[in-house]
């Protein structure tokens, strides 16, 4: 088969997908709110990417620590000149957004805080989504015991208001954690292998899971027993405050994804085309991947995009409560928390220190607004009832 005919084949195959994409883009263009959302997110992406140019780090090893311009307690308004000669030599001449208590530069914090916000939002959502997809698929497609166990567990986690459970977890997480990467990796490998190899329905469900768990439990025990020391792939992780926040939010976040995905799968799995696929002899894995997920994933995408905003809000709230990022770290929530004292301080002229809390707050608000607008627009655009006709 010649390359040209292959290319033709490929083009034919990709055309309907492109048409779909065009259709979607046309819908996006018609909805002004989604354009606003996209522009806002694009704006923040640009800030995050160009942060090293917009705000050259004063400490190349740790760009996320906001630079000091002396240690004076009183904030200074936007436009104040930089006094510290070391910083000035690096090209900083003015404090564009002013300084906070301790002469921390607000502009620098806001710019690098964008990266922090993306990191928190995307990372937490990605991890929750991955775990949610796996567990949701298991629960939704196989049902039975595994479903019951997972659902009860999600019930329990969801019984706590997210912020409060995250709060407890953040203070509970130890500063250092030893993680057995070999263990985790092996678990995933065995699990996936069994799912791929296992043809019979029984093997793929709860048994795979149990076998996998038993498998590495045995392996780990054997290893430690024979060698007497933990293997090299057991690594101790030092958890910074922000890492703890990430872990806590992911731990709190995944059950809602499990729920949604399970619900979607239950909705789709009784459709005729899934039954038809079974009648044709498709394996369970193929049914899930080819038939169920493509039809179930859209509502998950919508929720994920809304969730990025919500996650950033929760992380900021944790910072505000003083259990998130440490003082001086480029994080919007932390900056407001730090500035809190200055609204109480300026009783005579309340707006004297407005920049300390207004500017970082605006960053959070606009960032979250962008994701929410985008999610809302997705909801309208991807609505399957509107789409197919």
């Amino acid at each position, binding site marked *: 088969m010649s390359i040209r005919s292959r290319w033709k084949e490929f083009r034919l195959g990709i055309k309907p997908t492109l048409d779909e994409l065009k259709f979607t883009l046309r819908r996006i263009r018609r909805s002004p709110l989604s354009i606003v959302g996209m522009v806002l997110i694009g704006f923040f992406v640009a800030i995050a990417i160009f942060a090293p140019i917009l705000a050259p780090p004063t400490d190349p090893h740790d760009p996320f620590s906001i630079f000091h311009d002396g240690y004076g307690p009183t904030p200074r308004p936007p436009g104040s000149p930089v006094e510290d000669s070391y910083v000035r030599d690096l090209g900083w001449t003015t404090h564009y957004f002013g300084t906070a208590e301790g002469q921390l530069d607000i502009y620098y914090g806001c710019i690098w805080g964008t990266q922090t916000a993306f990191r928190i939002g995307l990372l937490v959502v990605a991890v929750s989504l991955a775990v949610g997809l796996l567990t949701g698929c298991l629960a939704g497609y196989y049902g039975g015991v595994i479903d019951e166990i997972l659902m009860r567990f999600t019930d329990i*986690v969801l019984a*706590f208001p997210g912020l409060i459970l995250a*709060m407890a977890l953040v203070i509970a997480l*130890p500063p250092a954690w030893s993680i057995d990467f070999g263990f985790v990796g092996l678990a995933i490998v065995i699990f996936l292998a069994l799912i791929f190899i296992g043809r019979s329905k029984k093997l793929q469900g709860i048994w795979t899971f149990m076998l996998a768990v038993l498998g590495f439990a045995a392996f780990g025990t054997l290893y430690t027993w024979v060698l007497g020391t933990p293997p090299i792939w057991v690594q101790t992780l030092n958890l910074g405050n922000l890492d703890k926040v990430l872990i806590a939010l992911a731990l709190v976040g995944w059950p809602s994804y499990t729920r949604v995905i399970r619900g979607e799968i239950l909705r789709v799995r009784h459709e005729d085309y899934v039954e038809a696929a079974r009648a044709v002899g498709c394996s369970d894995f193929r049914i899930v991947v080819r038939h169920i997920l493509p039809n179930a994933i859209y509502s998950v995408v919508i929720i994920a995009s809304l969730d990025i905003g919500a996650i950033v809000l929760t992380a900021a709230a944790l910072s505000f*409560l003083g*259990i998130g990022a440490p003082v001086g770290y480029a994080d919007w929530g932390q900056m407001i928390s730090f500035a*809190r004292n200055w*609204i109480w301080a300026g009783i005579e002229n*309340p707006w004297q220190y407005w920049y300390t809390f207004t500017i970082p707050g605006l960053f959070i608000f606009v960032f979250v607004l962008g994701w929410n607008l985008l999610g809302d627009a997705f909801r309208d655009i991807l609505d399957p009832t509107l789409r197919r006709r």
Partner: protein
Amino acid sequence: MGLREFVIRRILLMIPTLIGVVLLIFAVTQLFTPGQRATLYITSEKQMSRIPDIIRQYHLNESVLLQFSDWFSQVLQGNLGYSRTGGGPVLQVMLRKLPATFELVIWSIPITILLGTYLGIQSAVHRDQLPDHVTRTVSIIGYSLPTFWLGIMLIAIFFSGLGWFPPERTGAQAFNYIYLSGHWRYYTGLLTIDGLLNGQPWISLDVLKHMVLPTATLVTIQIALIIRVMRSSMLEALGKGYVTAAKAKGLTNTQVINKHARRNALIPTMTVAGLLTAGVLTGVTITETVFNIDGLGRWAAVAAGGGGTVPDVPAVLGFALFAGIVYVITNLIVDVLYAYIDPRIRLG
């Protein structure tokens, strides 16, 4: 399946969740060092010096099962530990701080639900017209605002700027009367009602004035969810055959909307309202902190991070347990109400 069976089933289903909630809290305790865990078993400041004894007494260095049985029997006796930041046993502190929080919640939740459903209906009825656009824009903005920042901005504008509505729970005069005069008697713990019962309506007024901003904060951040659900379920209901059929009967538009569409649209909204009520403690934690209201939320916030370098573990865990139990019970109530409104559930 009848309503009674449904309720019994719900209650039975609630039990494993409650047990799970307790278990999860216990699992979190296992992340702490034995020294921190020990504070969960003491009841007074004096015992703080006996930590090593307590570690031994409650097997805190031993097997998880042993620890659990000790801990659980303590919890069943109502001992959740000693809160350093609250200055007393956790349960007592919680009871002391609950009224302030409750007072905030019983104002904000009904306002949120009533206003939210009303706006949702208006938004759906005037779909793609000005009221709809305004409502949706305002709600999405409310949904995107960080609670604490909104609170701070409200204080900056309405207190620092305009001087209309002050933060905190009471003004200085009322504070003096309540805590220092010796004439004050607690009836319910809710200052608005106690003010009237004490024959001091000015205290009630003062408290109400202080509650305007925190309530506004809570309503603003929560109302978006209700509006969104009410709007979409109302739109769905308005597209149903029975709405057309009701119009064909010759009913007025108002009758069709208020009688036929609204009742059906309320069914999904109720679930969300329940979730909101159960989750209100999240917002309360931040709001109380910002407005300096001495309730459960601020206590937990201070315990977790504000009170120094070492967190007050029993306070945070006690608060989390409380929140979990509130959630489970609220959910039960909502489920039962749900069954009451929707005959399809009530009658099987």
